[in-house]
């Protein structure tokens, strides 16, 4: 399956992401999930970015938190809300908000 996974937290209390193994996965960072796209703790980028997936981060949620959209990790594509709609309808079949 083609699964779009929404991550809305920085500190996650579930390990679901480690278990999911769809044929194609997109990880859409929204709300506090966008910290994964920019923060490095002790110099190390978020381990979430090691997953085999396409990564997206919502521009407005980055900027709401004072994070510079031009400084996200190179694996992450910065997108707008309209792009989220297109990803849901065109690129993936199912969604998971974890």
């Amino acid at each position, binding site marked *: 399956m083609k699964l779009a996974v929404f991550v809305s937290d920085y500190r996650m209390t579930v390990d679901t992401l480690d278990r999911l193994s769809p044929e194609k996965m997109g990880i859409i960072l929204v709300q506090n999930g966008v910290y994964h796209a920019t923060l490095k703790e002790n110099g190390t980028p978020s381990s979430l970015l090691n997953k085999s997936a396409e990564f997206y981060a919502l521009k407005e949620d980055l900027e709401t938190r004072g994070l510079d959209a031009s400084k996200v990790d190179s694996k992450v594509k910065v997108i707008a809300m309209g792009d989220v709609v297109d990803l849901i309808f065109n690129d993936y079949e*199912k969604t*998971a908000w974890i």
Partner: protein
Amino acid sequence: MATTKLGFIVQRPPYKSENPKLALTHAIATQSVEVYLNEGDTVTADIAFIGDGVLNCKKDQKAMDYYGLTSTEQHIKMALLVDINIWVCKEDVEKFGLSEDDLVLDAEEFGADMTVNVVPYGEISKKMEEMNHLLFF
């Protein structure tokens, strides 16, 4: 004549937020979904408990005694009574040092035929593929 299959994945423990319980009450509501649909059409909801979500299935929950609240255990029994498929991740049950004896597995006292299935994660993963939509709680 079509069926939409929903997969409810409960990944969090009970009593922190309402969500695990709402997963069960929403699944139970499939019983009356047909009033909104055309003859022959239906929606089903199967439930899988994974990760800390398996803690919802611990038996002997006393939520009614202490909080005046229907326990998650009771809701699992009601779901069995209306023939909802329920799967519990075996690896997670074992990780917590729990055995099947610790879990609510049936609702025999209400006359339910269905039982809770403790299965390897791989089986839950396969079910997820078969669903039309996934809802994570």
